[in-house]
């Protein structure tokens, strides 16, 4: 059986470069997809994935499997790098509008769902309990890095409504995820 992402991260912490390469092979496509969704620029997304894995290597020791999954830890680094990259460009607005048109909620199929970690399946279950528009708002903010204003524009909903959709969804998610 292939080693888990968690085990690979722990091996990275002890200086195992081959583990980093395995981890990259296992996770880079999704992390690149994540960065592309937010940045809508291949160049920028490549830079972010590159920077992120350098950080992963250097910070592997700070990964604590008791606090979250390896993939969430990786996603956290990549998304934070994305927001830093947007900020460094001196603009917060996303770049290529054509990505916007083609985006779909990457809701996993039943087969994909089974491949998710237990925690991720649980989050998906909690998301399913939300109503459509609040859920969609949250997913647009997560996968596309949209601001409240951009989500409102996208869903043609009032800004105040979108804010309360997202804020209430976050509170409900936390309640649902708590043990």
């Amino acid at each position, binding site marked *: 059986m292939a080693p888990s992402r968690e085990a690979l991260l722990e091996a990275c912490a002890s200086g195992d470069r081959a583990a980093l390469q395995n981890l990259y092979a296992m996770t880079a496509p*999704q992390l690149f997809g994540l960065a592309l969704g937010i940045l809508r620029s291949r160049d920028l997304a490549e830079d972010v994935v590159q920077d992120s894995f350098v950080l992963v290597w250097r910070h592997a020791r700070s990964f604590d499997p008791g606090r979250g999954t390896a993939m*969430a830890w990786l996603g956290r680094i990549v998304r934070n790098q994305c927001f830093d990259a947007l900020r460094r460009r001196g603009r*917060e607005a996303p770049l290529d509008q054509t990505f916007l048109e083609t985006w779909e909620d990457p809701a996993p199929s039943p087969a994909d769902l089974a491949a998710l970690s237990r925690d991720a399946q649980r989050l998906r279950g909690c998301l399913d309990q939300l109503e459509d528009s609040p859920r969609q708002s949250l997913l647009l903010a997560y996968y596309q890095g949209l601001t409240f204003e951009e989500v409102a524009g996208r869903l043609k909903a009032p800004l105040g409504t979108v804010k309360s959709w997202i804020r209430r969804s976050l509170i409900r998610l936390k309640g649902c995820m708590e043990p």
Partner: protein
Amino acid sequence: MNYQHPELRERLAAEYALGTLRGLARRRFERVLAADPGLRDQVQAWELRLNLLAESAPAVAPPPRVWQRIEQRLGPAPARAGVLSRWWNSLGFWRGAGLLAMAATAALVLYIAAAPAPQPGTNYVAVLIDAEKNPILVARFDAESRELRVRDLRPVATDPAHSRELWIVPAGGTPKSLGLVEDNKTKTVTLSADQAAAVEKAILAISREDPGGSKSGAPGEVLFTGPVVPSL
């Protein structure tokens, strides 16, 4: 804004993690975060919760050059790395996982000064900070070889429209260029005997210049500066 209010803290932590907190509000929140470990914990919990969604992100294979560049940047595998690279790697802690690298510079200097130095008494360090006192680059000088090494504490976005130029300013003297510093690469330069002798009271600086560096011989816009101090 009252950052002590529990509901507001939780809401901002969640919105920061989701990314909907942007622009000035995000920056302001990051400054609060830097001094508030409890809030940092809340943010991290939210980040680890929301990023469970990363598992269902659409998979898009990155081109092979991405991994090649990662390997290039990490250099030779650590089994063969010497004391110096371990020392550099130990600084990784300060880069912050894309977040909160705004550690107090004084603490960083102490941390570096406390790191084991292979030749006590002959090494110097400098942390170059920006106008908001965020540490940006770190420099290390070996008095014996007269080699000065400078590198970014965090990956920086490359900016093809400008060059970054390194300067040394001896106490009471004028800035002298030490050449260009490429983004995300360690810059190594050998100081002259005179510069090396005066290094202890000198200041290092990075300026932003037109591509190729300063034509006038004087720095353009100074971005980062830091005094050179002896390490233990």
